């Protein structure tokens, strides 16, 4: 059984998806099956992470076909970490989904909704676990198509348009990725990433490989919403159903960043990416602009979901910035931020989901004075907000600390200053929400509003507590991220 874990990681969700669709007439049953599926996925992810935590690598030949003919799944410290993020967020979001989805999605579509959710989930898991470049593309499309459907099911009619926008941008992204992979295949005759890593050095001088690199980098950058290719993200996150926003914000961009790392570190290799092509010179300015501009835009948002969406773009900038230092410490800071930001932003969007559940919308004027009636929801928002800012003893601080150290190690004082100033900007936009909810008087015509139901509140607080737990007990994420960074670099580091 345990040797088939890598296959189970994807297969459970993939087979559950059509089953759930068939249960469309029984929404609660569909939900129950999805819940069990997600929890099983988490268990598998944890087991895999435990297996590779000593630095070992699991190879799994799909259907018994040995690579390069068959598809190989390969789990190491890096993607086990990403699998855990997906598993954890989906497992926590499912109890939350029950009532949130019942309220936002028409009853006759709930089964379809969960089916699409499972497909998106399976797609993301597949991207993370597979060691086959073409397979990555396929899973990208699976998750993307399912995500378009999920976003389009938002209650606001603009959800349709945002979904369409995402579809165009996403398709361009995956097409670029496919072109790049095609070029790689032409030049090397293989799609297995480990094989690519071995054969690429012989042909790196060619223009084709450089073009392939460019296509892949731009294609993935679209998917991970690297500034200025982020335009699809704020709309998609703002208008999607609450539960979808939570899930996608915590996982979709993270997985894309993982793929970028896999290509530049493993397939192309550090030397080619950073020394021959100097990719850091492109990534660092974009990362910095991506941190600064969306953060400032976030300050001026009226809608809390949109505000957090812009903050997500900025957080992607942090992760790319860590990569652009081209050091082990920078890489590790990025990888640890994948996790820290996932739990932080998911907690924030869940708190927002609670507000949406009671208020119907989350513009700053609508949430005025809401803290008095929904104290637990807003408290969760404040705590997770502190983590987003990066206050000590929260998960966000662990990231920021390492990112700053990585910047200082390279002697990049101005970058360190930017990071600190932007934390202040983050304080401002979180404060705007806090001020509206705590200090503005509630509107006269406010309906009688009660605290969100426990089924929403408990998952929200589970993730919120996680941001504190991993801010205090930081050894776990740090050692996992170090493990992941070593897996990507291919050599043990002295930290």
């Amino acid at each position, binding site marked *: 059984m345990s040797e088939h874990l890598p296959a189970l990681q994807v297969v459970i969700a993939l087979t559950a998806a059509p089953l759930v669709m068939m249960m469309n007439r029984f929404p609660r049953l569909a939900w129950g099956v999805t819940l069990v599926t997600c929890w099983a996925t988490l268990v598998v992810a944890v087991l895999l992470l435990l297996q590779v935590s000593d630095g070992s690598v699991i190879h799994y030949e799909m259907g018994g076909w040995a690579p390069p003919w068959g598809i190989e799944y390969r789990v190491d410290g890096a993607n086990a970490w990403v699998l855990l993020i997906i598993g954890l967020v989906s497992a926590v979001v499912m109890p939350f989904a029950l009532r949130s989805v019942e309220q936002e999605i028409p009853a006759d579509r709930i089964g379809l909704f969960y089916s699409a959710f499972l497909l998106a989930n399976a797609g993301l898991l597949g991207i993370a676990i597979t060691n086959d470049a073409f397979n990555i593309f396929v899973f990208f499309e699976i998750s993307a198509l399912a995500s378009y459907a999920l976003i389009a099911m938002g209650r606001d009619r603009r959800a349709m348009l945002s979904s369409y926008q995402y579809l165009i941008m996403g398709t361009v992204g995956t097409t670029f990725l496919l072109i790049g992979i095609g070029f790689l295949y032409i030049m090397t005759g293989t799609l297995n990433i480990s094989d690519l890593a071995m054969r690429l050095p012989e042909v790196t001088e060619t223009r084709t490989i450089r073009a392939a690199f460019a296509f892949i980098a731009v294609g993935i950058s679209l998917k991970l919403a690297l500034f200025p290719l982020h335009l699809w993200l704020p709309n998609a996150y703002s208008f999607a159903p609450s539960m979808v926003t939570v899930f996608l914000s915590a996982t979709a961009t993270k997985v894309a960043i993982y793929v970028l790392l896999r290509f530049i570190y493993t397939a192309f290799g550090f030397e080619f990416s950073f020394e021959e092509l100097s990719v850091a010179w492109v990534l660092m300015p974009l990362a910095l602009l991506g941190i600064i501009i969306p953060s400032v835009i976030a300050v001026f948002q009226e809608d809390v979901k949109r505000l957090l969406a812009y903050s997500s773009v900025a957080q992607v900038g942090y992760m790319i910035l860590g990569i652009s230092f081209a050091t082990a410490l920078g890489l590790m800071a990025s990888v640890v931020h994948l996790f820290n930001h996932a739990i932080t932003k998911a907690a924030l969007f869940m708190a927002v989901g609670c507000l949406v559940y009671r208020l119907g919308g989350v513009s700053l004027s609508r949430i005025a004075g809401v803290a008095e009636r929904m104290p637990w929801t807003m408290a969760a928002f404040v705590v997770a907000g502190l983590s987003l800012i990066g206050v000590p*003893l929260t998960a966000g601080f662990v990231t920021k600390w390492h990112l700053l*150290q990585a910047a200082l190690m390279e002697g990049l004082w101005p970058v360190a*200053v930017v990071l*600190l*100033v932007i*934390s*202040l900007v983050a*304080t401002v936009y979180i404060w705007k929400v806090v001020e509206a909810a705590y*200090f503005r008087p509630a509107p006269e015509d406010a309906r009688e509003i009660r605290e969100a139901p426990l089924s929403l509140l408990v998952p929200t607080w589970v993730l919120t507590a996680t941001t504190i737990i991993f801010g*205090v007990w930081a050894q776990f994420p740090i050692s996992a991220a170090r493990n992941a960074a070593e897996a990507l670099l291919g050599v043990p580091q002295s930290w």
Partner: protein
Amino acid sequence: MVSDAALIYWAMAVPLLGMLALIAASRWAVLRDALVVVTAAVMFGVVLQLLPRVLAGERPSATLFELFPGLEIAFMVEPLGMVFALLASGLWIITALYAIGYMRGAKELHHTRFHVYFCIALFSATGIAFSANMFSLFVFYEILTLSTYPLVAHKGNEAAKQGARTYLGLLLGTSIGLMLPALIATWWLAGTLEFTPGGIMAGRVDPAVGTILLVLFMYGIGKAALMPFHRWLPSAMVAPTPVSALLHAVAVVKAGVFTVLKVTVYLFGLDYLELLGSTDIILYVAVFTLLSASLVAIQKDNLKARLAYSTVSQLSYIVAAAMLVNEFAALGGGMHIVMHAFGKITLFFCAGAIYVATKKTEISDMNGLGRRMPVTFCAFFLGALCVIGVPPLGGVWSKWHLLMGAYDSGAQLVVLALIISTLLNIAYLIPPVVRAFLLPPPKGEETAGVREAPLLCVVPLSLTALGCLALFVMAGPLAELLRPYLSVAGG
């Protein structure tokens, strides 16, 4: 014998446990208020247990947890921290009594919430006092800011919210924008944030960089209220008076100057400090602050605003003491933390008592009030004399040492400034007393009879006023306690 770690943890756990207890008892006002006093007393008792150990030369320490290697939440009790913790917890007992009288007398609302945040504030102040490294101190420093914010905004009206926003904005802004970068840079350059006698910078950090770091730290510690980042303190005066008294004359502001002393003595080290170009700059910023804040204080008619600017001025005495880099000044700075605390808390208690009894807040309305509230104004007089530094009150000793220190360092300008400032102190602290006792009350106000504030207001302020007197003779033991810190500071 209780272990060191247990005592340290208990000292910090007691206010939190007390907080839970009083939340549970929130329905029964009398029980709840009693619990506040009991909590304060127990906490003081626990802190007191640490005193003999520190006097015996021990340094009780404990490590709570390690965030990641080299960065931990850890505690170590050294003389200066001992003094600060004793001061904060001791005065809390008196303030708790006073707060009960004040909150009822002034008909303030939300008593439970008020006491809850008070408990958290005291918890974090103790954390600051006992922190063994700059990182721990920073964490508790921020908790203190956050927990006092709701106290400043307590009244909930527009003025309170506005004041509270300035309060939070300036304190968080300076600490995250300036202190945190300085802290990270220090960790990066020196490899540690441990408070170490003699400092951690020497030989590790280029004095040119140290010069910048010092400026970042001194302005980053916004609670020390160096100009131009002093505005939060007057803004905080919208809070109920017990808050102004314990937090904005003792715990919060003293946490600021305490941090200044810790940073200069245990992070920079005085020998290293002398190498830095910015030490003199900060010294003169402090001198400027202490003079100009006094000048502003003279013009304030609102009693609490005047006291607030007076505090800004007095805090700069201590910053200046740290920047003078010699033994007398360092002793003066350490003593001034205590002396000013007793003097200023008395003054604030009086301001609150006057408000409770008469609803008066402006000094110009206080003519003849001394006949009605003799005890309060006598206490005010003693508190004022203590802050000014006149024998036989405690304040004289700290100013004396400060002057000696300035003289020793050859900083004639500072000597002059201290003398001028003392004159200014007289000019703004004595007139309220003179008006109250010597001027006739305005027409239409009855003069007959003594009508003081409630007993729970008057007794505490009398106690702290007597404390100011007692400190005159207690200065010796206090200096003795601070001695080991001085041997570090004086080099």
